[in-house]
Every structure is written in C-alpha cells, then in structure tokens.
C-alpha cells in the first residue's frame, strides 16, 4: 500500500467501491479501481455504455464515489469535452473556485474503436484537456461476447463463430493507440493492470498532461476469453510478454517502450488455454506469430528513431 504513495495521496480510499456486479476476476474494474486512485477526488467521470457502466450503476445503486455521468455509446468524448468547456467558462466567470479538475472519459473497446470513434477523434482534434481511458476487453462483453473491431484475429465470439467455413474473427485488431497518435495529441499510452505500477505511472502522466491524453488498457475478461477467473492477471502478463500487447507511451510524438519483454515468448503460450482460441490450427498460430513479430519490430523502429 505504501508503494502507491508515489502516485496518489489516498492509496487506501476506494473510488470504485465493493458491491459492483462485475464478473469474478474482472480485470477491467481492477484497472479503473487503481486508476481512479491516481485521479483523486477532484474528478468528473463520463462513461459510455458498456460493461463498466452496466455493472457499477444499476439504479438505485452506484459504485462510484465521484461525480459520474452515463452517456450513450457514441458520445462519451463529446460529453467529456462539454464538461471541460463548461467548467472552464464557469471558472472564468468566477462562479466556481479555480482548481485543477480532472475530466475523465471512460469507454470500452466498442465505445471507442467502433461507435465512439468519431466523437473521440473530434475531441482529440479540438484539444480539450481531458483523459480518455479505453478499457479494451476485445469484444462486446456486456451483451454476450459479440465481435468488435478490437477483437483479435482468430478469436471466437458469438458473431464470429469458428467452424468448417470460418476461423473465427477474420480481420486484424484495430490499432487504436496508433490512431490516437495520428491526432498528434500530447500523450498516448498502452497499459495493462497486470503491470500495476507501469499503469499507475501512465495514469499519473496523463493526469498531469495539459490537453488530451489517451490510455489504452488491455483488460482481461475471464468470461469472454473463456479462461478461469483466477488467471486474469496471468493472461494480461502473457499478452505483454508474448508481444501481443506491447506496453509503450508516446509523448508528443516520441515513442518509448516502457517494458521490453524481449526475448518474446512464443505467442502460442498466450493462445493456449484461452477457450476463444482453442480452434486455432498450427498454420493460423504461425500467421498470428508473424503478425506479432512484424508489429513488435515496427514499434521498436518507431521508438529508436526519436
């Protein structure tokens, strides 16, 4: 608990309380639980529809101890930018006291990569001072595991079922952090709660960034990935060590790999044991391995040429 004092003044205060209805072993609520400790009490959260909204606020109860607003799937970034502008004006007019208020927009991978992309792109382009956290569990889990554009190649979901004529998800995972980098915003990072201190450090940087910051958090979903609930942290670690989900940050266009997993473990280590990948043949695994190697090499090139 002491080691968190570097990142937050109140390490033992829970902004996301117990009593939420997340599945057993949910790494997504774990990420938010840890992340909100860094943001502290002067924060306002706008949250898109998705797992985290469903499980935390079934009316008349709420798990949040912060001002929190639920918005539709597509407009969380728009609402967050509205809150930011509103607060700025109220402060200028002297209607509320001047202080640092953190505006946080939180959405899942569906609310970010599919439905909310337009609003997010607009908010990043306009340069609002807010932090966007995408908690990526690689499918629409709250409605029962439908594919999103963030679902990795070959994964089984209910709308990309594997069989004689299908290999599961046919397309590659959308590289959302790269899209955020392409907006030339001050801070973009990828993180995973399996590496909590790396994650907390990135949240702290995002909080202190003036202007938009984007954090892409891989959050393991035991229910949707078809793994035992106690292995959520373990699989997050494997995703990083195999290079499937590299941890890096981009500050004003400069890439930096924050944790180098080299030499990379074979990607088969990560795929085996996950029910959503159990149909994969050797060929497909080799194909995924090639893709991972290519992406990792590309990322390394980026981080070296700064």
């Amino acid at each position, binding site marked *: 608990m002491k080691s968190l004092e570097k990142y937050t003044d109140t390490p033992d205060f829970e902004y996301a309380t117990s*009593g939420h209805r997340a599945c057993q072993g949910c790494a997504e609520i774990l990420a938010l639980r840890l992340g909100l400790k860094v943001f502290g009490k002067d924060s306002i959260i706008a949250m898109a529809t998705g797992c985290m909204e469903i499980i935390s606020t079934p009316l*008349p109860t709420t798990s949040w101890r912060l001002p929190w607003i639920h918005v539709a799937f597509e407009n969380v970034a728009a609402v967050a930018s509205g809150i930011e502008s509103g607060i700025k004006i109220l402060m200028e007019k002297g209607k509320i006291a001047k202080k640092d208020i953190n505006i946080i927009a939180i959405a899942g991978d569906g609310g970010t990569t599919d439905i909310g992309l337009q609003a997010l792109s607009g908010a990043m382009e306009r340069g609002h001072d807010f932090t966007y956290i995408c908690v990526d569990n690689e499918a629409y889990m709250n409605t029962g595991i439908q594919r999103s554009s963030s679902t990795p190649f070959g994964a089984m979901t209910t709308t990309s079922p594997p069989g004689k004529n299908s290999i599961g998800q046919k397309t590659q995972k959308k590289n959302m952090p790269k899209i955020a980098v392409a907006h030339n915003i001050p801070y973009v990072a990828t993180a995973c709660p399996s590496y909590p201190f790396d994650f907390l450090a990135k949240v702290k940087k995002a909080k202190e960034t003036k202007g938009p910051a984007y954090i892409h958090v891989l959050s393991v979903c035991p229910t949707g990935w078809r793994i035992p609930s106690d292995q959520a942290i373990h699989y997050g670690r494997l995703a990083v060590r195999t290079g499937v989900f590299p941890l890096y940050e981009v500050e004003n266009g400069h890439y930096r790999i924050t944790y180098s997993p080299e030499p990379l473990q074979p990607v088969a280590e990560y795929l085996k044991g996950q029910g959503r990948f159990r149909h994969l043949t050797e060929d497909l695994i080799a194909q995924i391995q090639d893709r991972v190697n290519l992406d990792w090499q590309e990322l390394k090139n980026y981080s070296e040429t700064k």
Partner: protein
Amino acid sequence: MAKPMDQYKWHELTVGCVIEDVGNAMEYKTGDWRSSKPVSNREKCTKCGLCWLFCPDAAIHQTADGYYETDLDYCKGCGICARECKPAAIVMVEEER
C-alpha cells in the same frame, strides 16, 4: 438499503435518476456469489499487499498489525489473490454452508 427497483413509484425517483447516496453499491453484498473462499496463512504472509493490489472487488483490507484480511461480504471468490500471492500464503477453500 435502497429499495429494489421494482418497488419504486415513478414520483419517488430523483430528476434525471440522480443517485444522491454515493457508493451505495456497498449495500449490495456480492459475497454470496462465491463458491470458494480465500484463507490466508499468517505464518507465510510477508505483508507485501499484492492481494490487496490485485483484488478487483476491493474486498481486501489491511488490518492494524499489517496483515491483509478479506471482507467475505464482498469477496466473489475469483481466486486472483491466491494465484498472485508469491509466498503462497493464500489458498482457496471450497465453501460449505
């Protein structure tokens, strides 16, 4: 406890369905979802706090003497604490009631 939703009349809801009692999900005990519970061995525990750090349900608290204790009202029994505990001080025990 806030009443179950189906016992509310329309005029009892706040405007915009604002929840004025923050963090009142604490009133909903998730402990009865559990099929096995974590049992920790204080002789092996090094007080590192990894169980507290990784608990998705915020169900683990530090006691005055530095050890960590599970709040069985909220623990869903996912087993992350037992798996991540480096000195293997926590084991999951099937619950009987």
